[in-house]
């Protein structure tokens, strides 16, 4: 009985050691600058009153060995692209990137780090202090467009309506915003340090 217990304890310890390693994501090559570019069909935030695209997400992979240990890492505030008429999006605060397996997430932190405003509803803003923009990642093999690594936006972050210098009847109400790529094709991820190298996310260390 004691021996059985000892075997189970050792087995449990081994699993405990193995599980975090296999679920921890890492990103390569260390120290390289990368860019996720949204084109006409790029990822966009769609709300009840309009939508805005994110045209660029840029960051630098932490240097080794932190690229295998350090998630999240800080990235540049994503660039806002075009919005539907009457809508605007302002991003601020600190933005970071993290990953669990092949589902990287880009997220902001800080008061109102993502704010949507609409000319059809003055006095209100739709904001989030921790917008989480989740997606799926596909590793590329080389540089031609079709074989580049890709990011496909796909999540529904929750934003909150708030007063914006006026009376907002919806203040405090939540709205689920759609974060999705315009087509089934993912957005290409480019290595800006070495354009011929694909940016790779690894599930195992």
């Amino acid at each position, binding site marked *: 009985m004691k021996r059985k217990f000892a075997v189970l304890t050792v087995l449990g310890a081994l699993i405990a050691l193995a599980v975090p390693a296999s679920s921890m994501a890492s990103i390569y090559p260390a120290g390289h600058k990368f860019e996720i570019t949204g084109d006409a069909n790029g990822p966009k935030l769609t709300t009840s009153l309009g939508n805005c695209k994110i045209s660029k997400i840029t960051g630098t992979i932490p240097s080794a060995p932190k690229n295998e240990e350090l998630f999240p890492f800080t990235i540049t505030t994503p660039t806002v692209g075009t919005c539907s008429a009457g809508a605007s999006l302002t991003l601020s605060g600190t933005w970071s990137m993290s990953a669990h397996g092949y589902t990287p997430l880009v997220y902001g932190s800080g008061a109102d780090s993502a704010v949507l405003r609409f000319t059809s509803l003055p006095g209100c803003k739709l904001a989030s202090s921790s917008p989480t923009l989740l997606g799926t990642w596909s590793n590329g093999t080389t540089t031609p467009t079709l074989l580049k690594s890709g990011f496909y936006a796909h999540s529904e972050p929750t934003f909150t309506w708030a007063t914006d210098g006026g009376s907002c009847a919806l203040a405090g109400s939540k*709205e*689920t915003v759609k974060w999705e790529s315009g087509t089934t094709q993912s957005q290409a991820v480019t290595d800006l340090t070495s354009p011929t190298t694909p940016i790779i996310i690894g599930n195992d260390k």
Partner: protein
Amino acid sequence: MARWVSLCLLALALGGCGGGKGSTVTVTSEQSAAGRLTCEDKTPLEVAQRLRSIAEHRGPRKRFAEMVVDPTPAIEESPGYPRLVAALYATTLPPPKRAQAAAACAEELAAASHGR
């Protein structure tokens, strides 16, 4: 076969795509029922409820419409409610026209409220 394809193309050209049935069609029917969908002489809630069909659609607009059409007492009593109804009304129009239409509708709703 060619005649059948031609007929289909002609039908599409005249009547539009069947899959396009949505808010435009709904709003058109509301417009014809009311002559013109206006915000004049009605309470914000009356106008909101005439836009109820929007809440039958899918996506973020549906949830927004539900909050406007079936408002909580706090939302309905808020001074910002007419603007909210006006914003919902504006979603039935093309984006470039929305800001102006929403402002006009909010003004009409305010004027109607004062007139009561």
